[in-house]
Structure formats: C-alpha cells, structure tokens
C-alpha cells in the first residue's frame, strides 16, 4: 500500500517554529523507509500525522491515492508500534494481540475460533509460542516489543508504522530484532516507515532514508546516495563522524585554510570561492615523507579498534580529529608530512556543491 504525504503543516501552539513545515513524502508500495533526524526534528510528529493521531493545520495523507481524513479511515489498515510498546497491562498477551479483532463490529468480526487461530499464527511468527497466557509485565523488553508488533499486525494491515521501536532494548537484542524486522517486512510484503534517531540502524534496515531537521525533510535518498552525496553539511554530520576543513576554491583547486591539509583538484562545475570540505575519518590519508628533509609534522595516536578499523586521533593545530585505517591494511602509515583530503565532499553555505 503506497503512502503519500502532501504539504503537511502542523503548527505548535504558541511557538513560531512549526512542528511540520510543509512536508511532502511519497512512499511506494513495499518500501522500507527510515525517518531519521535529531530529537525535535519532527520525525515522530510526522509519523503520528500519517497515522492520524494528531490533527494537522493543512495538507493531506493519502493511502493508495485515497485521502485519509480521520483515524477511523485508517483503523485496521495501519499498524502502529509505540516507543514504549503501549501494551494493555491488564490483558494477557493473547488478548492484547486479538484486540484489533475483538473490537470489530459483530457483523465483521471473525469467529472466536478464527481469532484464536490468528493469535496463534502471530505468536508463532513473532517467536512467542506459549506466551499467550502471560501478562505483559512478565515479559522482557524484546518480547514486549514483539507482542506490540503482533498486535499491530493482527488486523492484517499493509502499512506498518514504527516509532523508535528499539529505543528501550539492549544493543544485542536490538541488532537481532532489527534484521528480523527487515525479514518480516519482506515476507509479509509490508510498506514500513520506521522512526529512529540511530542512523546506523536506519542504514542497516531501510531502502530509503529520509533525513529531517526542524520540521522539514532535508534529504530523501537511498543509504548509498546519502553517503556519497549528502545534501547539506548537517546530513553529512548526522550520518556519521565527519571532519570539516574550511578553505577556498581557486582555479579549480581547493586550498584548505589548514596548512597540514593538502590542496586538491575539485570536480568540474565548482566555482571559485569559499567552501567547506567535509570528509569521513576513514577517507583521509596521511602523506608519507618524500625526502629525508621532510618534517614529520603529523602523528596519529592509536585509540583502539572497532568494526575492522583502527582508530587514531590526529593533532591538527588547535584541534584533535579522528582518523581511521582498516586493521588489515599492511602498511599503516601513522606518521607523515600532510593530510590527503581529496575524497572530501564540498559544501558552500551549508549545501553540497555539484
């Protein structure tokens, strides 16, 4: 089921900055989209608006090209999972899951045995066999999360909306439930929107990432495009550690203000003028000395390893910047005369230069 958000505006009472500032978004059928951004960017607000939980001041939400005006329109067609699960504490797991079916009008409601079978099915799908009789208080965080998912899926919705669903889980459970969720999305053929403040999580599960900042969508791209061509300095910083080098482009060459960083040739189309070069710590290289007279002005201090990269810190004048090299690289150059930052992306006034 495709979702389309058109020019949504939601004003905050008493504040000048709107919560949602003319947000438009198209999510095709079967897509897995992650909404990321710092807290207060409007991710959850947007998700709640799509679910119809909050009223917006203008704009519309379309589900399969049909406008949704109230929560009632969406009931049963969208599954929503809350950050803190929002399970019904006085009901058993089975009753929790069956809730969406139990509240249907008598004429549409499946028979009791059918509901029970559906609950069993979902318990199995969620790897929660035999838990149906328990109360939510007796479950672990990961189990509660899966009960919440099962409840959201009970009525067979084609759309799944997840609001920071892994926020309260420990890192190991988080990682396993993440891949499992992606599999679930694929097997059930859902259209999923996931809100998260963890960009790593987003990069791992989603086919598309929508970056939000102060109530606006800054960039909407595939994880790869996002990494290669971040639209703004903010996106570049948000998606991972980045080091910036202010400088100037002159005659097709970028001259960093920092003398330890080497000038480099910029791509065609970048006009002369001030720019900021931003680069990931693992994209930088240290220039080896060419002759005996060269002064070794750069020295990388080792800081341990992570994810196959050895981490270092570099003293660049006043500031200390991170610097990563792959662990298995034969010759790890930790001393040198200058820093090669030619793989930088260039930004002018906050925006990416082509």
């Amino acid at each position, binding site marked *: 089921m495709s979702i389309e958000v058109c020019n949504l505006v939601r004003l905050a009472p008493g504040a000048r900055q709107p919560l949602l500032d003319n947000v438009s978004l198209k999510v095709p059928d079967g897509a897995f989209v992650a909404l990321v951004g710092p807290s207060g960017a409007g991710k959850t607000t947007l998700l709640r608006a799509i*679910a119809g*939980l909050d009223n917006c001041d203008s704009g519309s939400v379309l589900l399969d090209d049909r406008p949704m005006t109230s*929560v009632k329109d*969406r*009931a*049963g067609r*969208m*599954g*929503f999972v*809350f950050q*803190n699960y*929002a*399970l*019904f*504490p*006085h*009901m058993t797991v089975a009753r929790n899951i069956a*809730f*969406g079916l139990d*509240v*249907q009008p008598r004429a549409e409601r499946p028979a009791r045995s059918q509901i029970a079978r559906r609950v069993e099915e979902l318990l199995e799908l969620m790897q929660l066999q035999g838990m149906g009789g328990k109360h939510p208080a007796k479950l672990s965080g990961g189990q509660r999360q899966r009960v*919440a998912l099962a*409840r*959201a899926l*009970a*009525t067979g919705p084609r759309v799944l909306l997840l609001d920071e669903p892994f926020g309260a889980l420990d890192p190991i459970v988080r990682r396993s439930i993440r891949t499992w969720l992606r599999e679930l999305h694929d097997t059930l053929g859902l259209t999923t929107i996931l809100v998260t403040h963890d960009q790593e999580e987003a990069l791992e599960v989603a086919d598309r990432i929508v970056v939000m900042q102060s109530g606006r969508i800054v960039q909407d791209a595939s994880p790869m495009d996002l990494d290669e061509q971040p639209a703004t300095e903010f996106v570049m910083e948000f998606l991972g550690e980045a080091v910036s080098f202010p400088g100037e482009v002159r005659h097709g060459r970028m001259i960093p203000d920092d003398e330890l960083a080497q000038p480099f040739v910029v791509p065609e189309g970048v006009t002369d003028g001030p720019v900021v070069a931003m680069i990931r710590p693992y994209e930088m290289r240290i220039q080896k000395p060419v002759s005996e007279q060269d002064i070794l002005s750069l020295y990388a201090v080792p800081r341990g390893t992570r994810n196959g990269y050895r981490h270092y810190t570099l003293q660049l004048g006043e500031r200390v910047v991170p610097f990563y090299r792959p662990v298995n690289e034969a010759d790890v150059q930790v001393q040198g005369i200058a820093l090669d930052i030619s793989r930088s992306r260039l930004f002018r006034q906050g925006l990416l230069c082509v």
Partner: protein
Amino acid sequence: MTRYVVWAASWLFILVMLVTPPALVLTEALKDGVGASLLTLSDPDAQAAIWLTLRVSVVAVTLNTFFGILAAWVLVKFRFPGRQFLQIVVELPLSISPVVSGLVWLLLFGAQGWFGPLLERWNIHIVFAVSGIILATLFVTLPYVVRTVMPVMEVQGRDAEEAAVLAGAGFWQVLWHVTLPGVRGALFSGVLLTTARALGEFGAVSVVSGHIPGETETMPLHIENLYNGYQSVAAFTMAALLALMAMSAVLLRSAPDWLARLQEKKA
C-alpha cells in the same frame, strides 16, 4: 525511644479521636439491650429513612461515578481553554459548606426561587422532595470520583488509548477496555468514598428536605429528629447503623490491597 513515644502518641490520638466516638455510640445504642435497640429499627419512619438513604446513595453514586469518569477523562486527556478553571470548579463542593450549597438549591427551585413558580405550574417538586435530596447529595459528593481517578489517569498516559483507537476501537470501547481497567483501583476507591459521603450527608440535605418523617427524612436527619425527641436508644441505634454502613464502605477500599497481599503470600 523517641520512636516508641511517637508510636504511642499516635495510637492514643487515634483511639481517643476516632475509635471512641463510634464505640460510645454503640454502647449508648445497646444501653437497654440488643432487643430494645433492634426494636427501634422496626419503626416505619426509621425504615423509611433507611430506604431513602440507600436510594439516594445509589442514585448519587451511580451518576457521580459515570459523570466523574467522563469529567476526569476529559480533564486529563485533553487540553482546552478553561481546563484549569474547570479543575478548580470540580473541587468547589469540598470547600463550600454543605448548608450553603443546600441554600442554593432552595434559591433556585424553592417556592420563592427562580424556577419555583415554573416548576409549580408543571407540578414538579424538587425542594422538600426526594429529587431535591438527590440533587443536594450529588453536589456534595461530586469531587470524589473525579479527584481519585484523575491522578491515576495522568500516569496512565495516552499511548495505550491511541493504540486502541488505531486498532479500530470506538470511544466507548477504548473507555471500557483500556482506560477504565487501568484505573480500576482508584475508581473503586472513589466510588466507596462517594458512597460513605452520600450516606452521611446532613447539611445540604437538611436544607432542602423539609424533614417530613417517613417521606423526606434520610438517616442523618432522622437521627437528629429522634435525638431532639429524647429517644436516645433509637437515635443511637440508627447512628450506629449509619456509622457501620459508612465504615464498611471505607474498609472495603483497602480490600483490593489485602487480596493482592494474600495472593502474593500464596504465590
């Protein structure tokens, strides 16, 4: 040492102030023996008073529970202009003397009151009738359910309700299946407090009732009447009964706690 002094002092205070009065009422009631005491209850006026009190309490508790839940729900879950004001107004009956609130009903619906002549024409009697007593009791007992349920609803938050709405539940289904089960302890407590207060209300009821024995006399009014007529055994018997009813309502409040503790011991 200090601990025991404080401990003894608090027990002494509670004994003197809270336990002695009902105990004395009971001894006064049983002064001429259990038989004589029970005989006073067979008086038709006494029985009418007991029935009236029960009827009034049931109606007042039912209405105040229903509207109290809705009021608490609206006050907690929605932000709207005038909400603060409404919250204060709900507590008004706690601060206003019941006699004053009784007088208000008299002013509105009495023979000389604003709506008096109109009601007279349609042959509706509120003042000096059962409906007036119910109105007065409703007013006095209004805050209890609202005030006990509100803080718990506040803690409960909106998430579970929103989840229910998204699953397709309607207004009453959300209220019945999600909101109320979450606050049932507080609700039970509020209902019993309302009951205890409704049973014993004197001031407001006294103003609007007209003290017609056998018709508009509730138990508290009947007790006063008997006492003023020097029928002390009858007065104290009725008083003991009333105290017993109210106290059992209050004791019932802690029943869920006991049950929970009992279950824990078993488990």
